[in-house]
């Protein structure tokens, strides 16, 4: 009875798995494989020349550097927001909690034009900042601001559930054992939140590196100064320089895979460290 060996109780595994793999291949795997294939058409020298050309290098520096800076700011601002939302009661708390999701939901182009108008020299925030001598729109600061906007929900939504789940009794125990509030936060709460904070940071960073819509309007897009890598891909495509576009794309893609890998490691590490009772 060899057929019986492989029978499953619920029907449809073969059919649904077949359809899933087919659909996944058509929409996701084959297109991405095309990108990989295109990369291998380049010799390493060609690839290296493209990547190390001044304009490409500057675009990558702008994207990665500002994304790192924005994710760091997100981490700090995000922790303040998470703390206020989960630990304190204040009027409008639930509304502010909902507002955090807006950067997730708002189409990037809308966010882009809105932020640009807001921070333009005659804008609601741009005008007072201009009086202080700070120019945001059409400078790298603008890119940074857009990246902070787009990244904030990642930190908040990753850390918030973890903080909510932490049993209040843990803090009470710590207090009973004589720890002051600062010691409780530093020695008891932060270590439990650290994996979620790192994950949130990594997610915000990855999103900011690849972000296009909310950044290009406010960026100014001056080559070597305020030009981000995704925009350079678009420009190269419009010039039909597919090889250049592909090379930049591969660098970005590898980075996001590295980030995913890092996140997986962080999560595995935190799971092995904190076995739930």
């Amino acid at each position, binding site marked *: 009875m060899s057929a019986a060996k492989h029978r499953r109780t619920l029907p*449809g595994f073969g059919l649904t798995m077949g359809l899933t793999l087919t659909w996944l291949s058509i929409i996701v795997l084959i297109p*991405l494989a095309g990108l990989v294939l295109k990369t291998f058409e380049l010799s390493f020298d060609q690839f290296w020349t493209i990547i190390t050309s001044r304009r490409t290098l500057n675009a990558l520096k702008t994207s990665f550097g500002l994304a790192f800076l924005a994710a760091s700011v997100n981490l700090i601002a995000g922790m303040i*927001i998470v703390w206020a939302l989960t630990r304190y009661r204040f009027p409008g708390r639930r509304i502010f909690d909902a507002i955090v999701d807006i*950067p997730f939901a708002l189409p990037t182009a809308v966010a882009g034009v*809105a932020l640009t108008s807001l921070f333009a020299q005659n804008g609601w925030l741009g005008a007072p900042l201009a009086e202080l001598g700070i120019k945001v729109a059409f400078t790298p600061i603008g890119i940074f601001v857009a990246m902070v906007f787009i990244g904030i929900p990642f930190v908040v939504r990753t850390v918030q559930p973890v903080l909510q789940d932490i049993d209040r009794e843990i803090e009470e125990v710590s207090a009973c054992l004589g720890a002051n509030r600062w010691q409780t936060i530093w020695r008891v709460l932060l270590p439990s939140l650290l994996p979620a904070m790192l994950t949130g940071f990594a997610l915000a960073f990855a999103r900011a590196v690849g972000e*296009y819509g909310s950044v290009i309007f406010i960026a100014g897009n001056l080559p070597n100064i305020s030009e981000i890598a995704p925009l350079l891909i678009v420009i190269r495509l419009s010039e039909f320089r597919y090889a250049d576009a592909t090379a930049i794309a591969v660098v970005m893609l590898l980075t996001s895979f590295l980030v995913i890998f890092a996140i997986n490691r962080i999560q595995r590490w935190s799971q092995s460290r904190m076995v739930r009772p």
Partner: protein
Amino acid sequence: MSAPLPLSPLRSASSSTLTEPRWIRGTIIALAVLFLILLIVLPLVLVFSQAFSRGFAAYLRALVEPEAQAAIRLTILVAGISVGLNLVFGLIAAWAIAKFDFPGKTMLISLVDLPFSVSPVISGLVFVLLFGGQGYFGPWLQSHDIQILFATPGIVLATTFVTFPFVVRALIPLMQEQGTSEEEAAISLGASGLATFFRVTLPNIKWGVLYGVLLCNARAMGEFGAVAVVSGHIRGETNTMPLLVEILYNEYQFMAAFAVASLLALLALITLAAKAILERHLDPNID
């Protein structure tokens, strides 16, 4: 000695070790609220304020422009097709992944997630490399006079790629949590596979399906980067609403740009509200 005396020092001691001093609490709340208002609420308010800056009549006129109408129609068409496809295949994939155990399951889930971690621009680029003039299938498509890039099919493909994970990801945890015993019960009572799916599984996951479709749709209608790369910006033909916002804005037609943007912002707000309601339905603690 009167008994209640020790109470007040005790209480103040415990509150200082379990929460922060009043001024710190105040500062943290103020910082959080200020950050959210300046960076998130203000841009949103600005969209609507700019859209209505010349009155309601001008707002409506901007939206009935033929170009705006064409963009709205294309956006709805593209979202309809992409969401429909991702819904059907999302249900199929979720069944295969959540209800069965097989080697490589974690790997498959990561592959399904892949589009989430790819930059929108790259999501468009991969289709240009496949179907563009110098792409792998470009010459063949040209000789057969089939237009994918810079036309609706390309926009649909890029949108479907970008929104691929939404439905599956909404369903897998839900279906795994519900287990397979209800399905096994149905099968042992003589129900066929399809009857089991439609009568037992689907009613149990209907809120999850709606949740996935909602988020999938919001992203499909709002996608900018991927669509910008494959659309070719042909006015009145391959411009979706986000692309039209870009064009109008770059032409300094700010009021019209924000009028179209306001529709997309409204969609985002409705999506968030519906999401909040659905999350209440999906919360296992409230059954």
